[in-house]
């Protein structure tokens, strides 16, 4: 099943027959912002010549792809990460895009080559300072932190070197600890909340017994002292606790770097391991779990409807887990006490919901609202926290046009050509 889901992100784009939406013929030019930023291109040396010409065709979505969302109700603050245009965007909690409007103008955005943000996946708002913490995934190995006043193409106020492929992020404000998931090799890594530059993690959860399998979302249930992790199901077995060998001490490793900008991953070499495709899951651990520790409960199986479960949130008062179920265009709600192959207690799904490839999710307990960031239609949709079924959202904040499907091209690391169908193949 995990395998089948992988195909859902395989964007097959027809060269000769796609819609006007997906092809922007560059008869005029490459966009101005692109041209200006490459004006200082280096002088390449060749033997036969350099080809500096406009592309014949250019497939590009000009709209945002919301990958995560964080809400601070006390300040009416909504922050979303945009994985397409590499931006952090802030809206008012009470914004509501009129149906006829093309999009809602954000209060501020942070983006550009100084920000150290690229493939943004997760966001966290510090409830006191309103600093915004952001995880990069496959292309940048650090977590930038921006103050509430940061705007435009600015350097982060703080940087923390993180393992390659960090994804989800949350914090324990009581203990001042920062939690992140790492997609591969599967791990949960915990830092001091104030960690910066080369600071070492406080603890790491990894190994065969953890049953971590391509972890994504992470949430804390402080009331019950639990940690909740969503997994896509890509698993490696390493034969025990070790997933890596330490190649040098932290001190040796840190001594080799001269600044946060040069940091990359951890001083480890990963073992080959045995790969397996498993069902997606929600793994529940003791909050302080570390090392090769098994989960206390696992929600997993065909009844769960889990399908690329992404960001996750917990309502401690209601005893519920909310999951953005990306590949199924749904929001699933489970009980925090659930275990095994159980059906969700509620499912928010259907055409009225406007939930389309939801990856981001956040709860506003104060106002009793559920926020969903949809990668598939440029929209944040707001529901009552008790919503169920095919229900219309209370409010919608759109960053792009209504009734238009997003291309969802993200980190296109490869391209192929299907000569039979004359189609370009773009995996993400």
């Amino acid at each position, binding site marked *: 099943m995990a395998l089948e889901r992988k195909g*859902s992100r395989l964007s097959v784009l027809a060269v000769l027959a796609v819609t006007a939406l997906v092809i922007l013929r560059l008869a005029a030019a*490459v966009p101005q912002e692109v041209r200006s930023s490459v*004006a200082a291109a280096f002088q390449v040396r060749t033997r036969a010549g350099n080809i500096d010409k406009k592309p*014949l*065709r250019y497939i590009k979505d000009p709209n945002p792809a919301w990958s995560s969302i964080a809400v601070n109700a006390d300040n009416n603050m909504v922050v979303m990460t945009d994985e397409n245009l590499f931006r952090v965007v802030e809206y008012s909690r009470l914004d509501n895009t009129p149906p006829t409007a093309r999009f809602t103008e954000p209060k501020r955005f942070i983006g550009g080559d100084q920000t150290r943000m690229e493939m943004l996946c997760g966001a966290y708002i510090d409830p006191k300072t309103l600093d915004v913490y952001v995880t990069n995934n496959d292309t940048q190995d650090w977590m930038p932190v921006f103050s509430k006043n940061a705007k435009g193409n600015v350097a982060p106020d703080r940087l923390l070197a993180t393992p390659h492929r960090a994804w989800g992020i949350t914090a324990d404000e009581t203990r001042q600890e920062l939690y992140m998931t790492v997609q591969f090799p599967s791990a949960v890594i915990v830092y001091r909340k104030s960690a910066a530059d080369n600071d070492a993690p406080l603890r790491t959860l990894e190994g065969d017994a953890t049953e971590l399998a391509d972890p994504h979302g992470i949430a804390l249930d402080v009331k019950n002292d639990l940690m909740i992790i969503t997994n896509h199901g890509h698993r490696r077995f390493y034969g025990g606790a070790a997933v890596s060998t330490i190649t040098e001490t932290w001190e040796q490793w840190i001594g080799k770097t001269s600044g946060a900008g040069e940091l990359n991953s951890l001083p480890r070499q990963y073992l080959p391991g045995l790969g397996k495709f498993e069902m997606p899951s929600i793994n529940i651990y003791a909050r302080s779990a570390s090392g090769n520790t098994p989960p206390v409960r696992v929600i997993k199986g065909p009844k769960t409807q889990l399908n690329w479960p992404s960001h996750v949130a917990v309502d401690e008062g209601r005893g519920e887990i909310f999951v953005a179920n990306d590949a199924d265009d749904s929001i699933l709600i489970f009980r925090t006490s659930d275990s095994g192959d159980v059906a969700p207690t509620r499912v928010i799904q259907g055409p009225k919901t406007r939930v389309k490839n939801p990856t981001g999710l956040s709860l506003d307990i104060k106002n009793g609202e559920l926020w969903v960031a949809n990668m598939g239609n440029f929209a944040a949709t707001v529901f009552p926290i008790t919503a169920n079924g095919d229900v219309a959202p209370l409010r919608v904040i759109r960053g792009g046009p209504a009734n238009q499907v997003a291309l969802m091209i993200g980190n296109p690391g490869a391209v192929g050509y299907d000569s039979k169908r004359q189609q370009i*193949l773009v995996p*993400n």
Partner: protein
Amino acid sequence: MHDIRYNAVDDEILVPNPFSNAILTFRGGANGQEAPVRIIQGPNTELNGPDRLDIDVVHREIFVPGRGNVLVFPLDANGDVRPKRAVRGPDTQIAGSSIAVDPLNNMFAVTGRDRSILVFDRLANGNVKPLHVIRGPNTQIDRINQMAIYPAGKLLVVAMPGVQGAMEPPRVFVGMWSLDDDGDIAPKWTITGKQTGLKKPFAVALNPDHKELYVTDMRLNGVMTFAVPEIFQPVAPAPVPANRH
């Protein structure tokens, strides 16, 4: 996923899955949440985080670069199968993050240590030296992502996204070398500059029929098509030795 290849003979699509240590083959017309028709996965495969691959539809083989090796599987392999050949050892100099195969001229190109491109005989096996090593300051190589080969022109086309970790590295280009090139040699052709709009080219694919080159750019999250008839210049193929199979 960091690679994808279309098999025009069998109408199939192949992709690597590094997280689950697998090579997946789908129907050419696969759509939606469709299961693969074959999976290469298991301890006998020796796969270790396969990130890229290429296929040789003439000799029906899959080439998978690994951490210091190149593993070769039958094109129709399925399950926990052993590689039929493995190029590895200190003499190979393989770093192994990207690969492209030329079934016409019986060669394959793979990334090597110290920012190099290594060219091997297609049937290389074991701890063997490369036929050619393209390495040095004149190559202007910082990092190599996906590669493709135009066999009729004996031309290797390489996506160069610049220094790892840089937001918008200055030295980015699509570079092209002859498979006969050797040493510290500048690329034959490059695609880069103000008009192209390229910021961080991650991948390349060729369409010789329409004389087009497809480039994905990570920094733009976009796909560009360049009309480049000048690079599709056939050269006389090398004679095929009688003992080839």
